[in-house]
């Protein structure tokens, strides 16, 4: 293998490091401005009520949550928005209490214009590591294009990090030669 140029290695390292850091920054920016989350919690798969399941933490049969039902564009706190299958989820919605669950009445029931919820967002069984997913994820449909975005992002980050590492070893003068797979007796 040709002698490694430390200067070229340094350029390679800093360039691809900048690209990698830029991609990370872009990803975290997309997360913190809510866009990534809205791609994930995109549409509902069933008729029911869209809610922000985080606010249901700590509620129980003894202390149920009372959610105000209404056509809110953005869910804030204890609010629920009626949705039909295939509807876009409102801003801040990350769970769906289905019409079937409300009809059953074990986890949630209707009380006039309010939705009474008797279980928390997620039930974790006392033993082992099992979750019973109450309202999050199950009836939520992710934007399929976010899958393409995820894959392109992770491959781009992998590429940038791989070349950053290669540039680093070149910059440090660490000589990595191609392995002689067939030298000697084999």
């Amino acid at each position: 293998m040709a002698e490694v140029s430390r200067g070229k290695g340094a350029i390679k390292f800093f360039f691809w490091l900048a690209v990698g850091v830029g991609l990370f920054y872009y990803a975290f920016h997309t997360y913190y401005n809510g866009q990534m989350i809205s791609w994930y919690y995109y549409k509902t798969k069933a008729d029911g009520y869209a809610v922000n399941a985080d606010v249901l933490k700590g509620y129980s049969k003894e202390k149920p949550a009372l959610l105000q039902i209404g056509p809110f564009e953005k869910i804030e706190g204890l609010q629920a928005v009626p949705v039909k299958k295939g509807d876009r989820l409102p801003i801040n919605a990350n769970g769906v209490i289905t019409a079937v669950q409300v009809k059953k009445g074990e986890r949630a029931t209707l009380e006039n214009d309010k939705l009474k919820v008797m279980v928390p967002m997620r039930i974790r069984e006392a033993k082992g590591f099992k979750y019973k997913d109450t309202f999050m994820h199950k009836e939520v449909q992710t934007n399929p294009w976010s899958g393409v975005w995820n894959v392109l992002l992770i491959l781009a980050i992998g590429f940038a990090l791989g070349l950053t590492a290669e540039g680093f070893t070149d910059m440090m003068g660490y000589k990595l030669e191609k392995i002689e797979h067939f030298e000697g007796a084999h």
Partner: protein
Amino acid sequence: MFDFAIAGIQAPLFLLILTGFTVGIVGGFIGVGGGYMVTPALIVFGFPGYMASGIDMTHIAGKGVVSTIRHRQLGNIDWVLGLAMIGGTMLGVEQGVRLLTWTKELGLSGIVLLTASVVIMLVLFVYTQIETAQAHKKMTKMAQEGEKVGRELTVSKGPAFFQRIPLFPIVRCRTAKIVVSMWVIVVVGIVTGILAGFLGVGGGFIRVPALIYIVGASTHIAVGTDLLEIAVSGGYGALRHSMMGNVDMIAVLFMIVGAMFGAQFGSIATAYVRGPAIRYILSYSLVLACVGAFLRLIYMMTGQKYEILSFFAVVFTLGEMLFLCLFIISLVYFSVRYTNGKNVPDWVPALVVAKK
């Protein structure tokens, strides 16, 4: 602890990065994605099971690219072999997933899956361990007789048999220095893909032995080429999981930070060792994963009554990652000592190279 809004949980950030790092070392060294180690770890950290698989698969795609770049630099990738396998693997994975769905409909999938995992890993462990021990013994004898010991030696008769199959078209893999029917490569891809799709893993622990013992690639080339494969099949798996809502990208990003460093160390470590050393690590990872899967199988077959079994299955799986990392680090350490003319145990010279 970090608040993962998509998964809806809080999980320990340091442990995520550490998991990415340790599995990166192991994966970069033996050419596996490490899903059978990572998925249980993510469940322990608090991620729902379906998300653990999705996060793992997505991080594997990125880690595969990182490792592939380094292995390319080391000359460990045969592009013809890798690209020829990809189509067969993707087709096989689809069929494996359908097979899994069919067993799910019969209500059998959990136990069938675990039983298949245990049997496959046990068979691979036994064969790899016996073959590698024989190769190691032969290399030690050659070293003692003053012969120049090469980077690779295998005693398996499989490659000679499969390379003689005269089905057109015949492919010349220049880097791997093998001439073999394209159908052998494609069928290996399909079969390993079916197993991988059925078991819900990347399949590296099946494909690497298949590349060595059927196609006839050297261990280093099998590792590097498989990581190329994993980058592609992992990307496809990541796409499917993302579309089904099984991926929290922020968790993936933290894991890839650790994986970047780990994969570098694991990949570069292959330059310090001979083929049998990599095969030993692969066989140990198989037997430890087999024990973990066996404990989970017993747990399920006893109606999930004895939580201690599930607990030990997780402990084994997590402990396996650390054990294998330490083993790999020790091989590099011994290689450096050997290079500098210092004392090393008798079993070491046949496994490591004196790096100039």
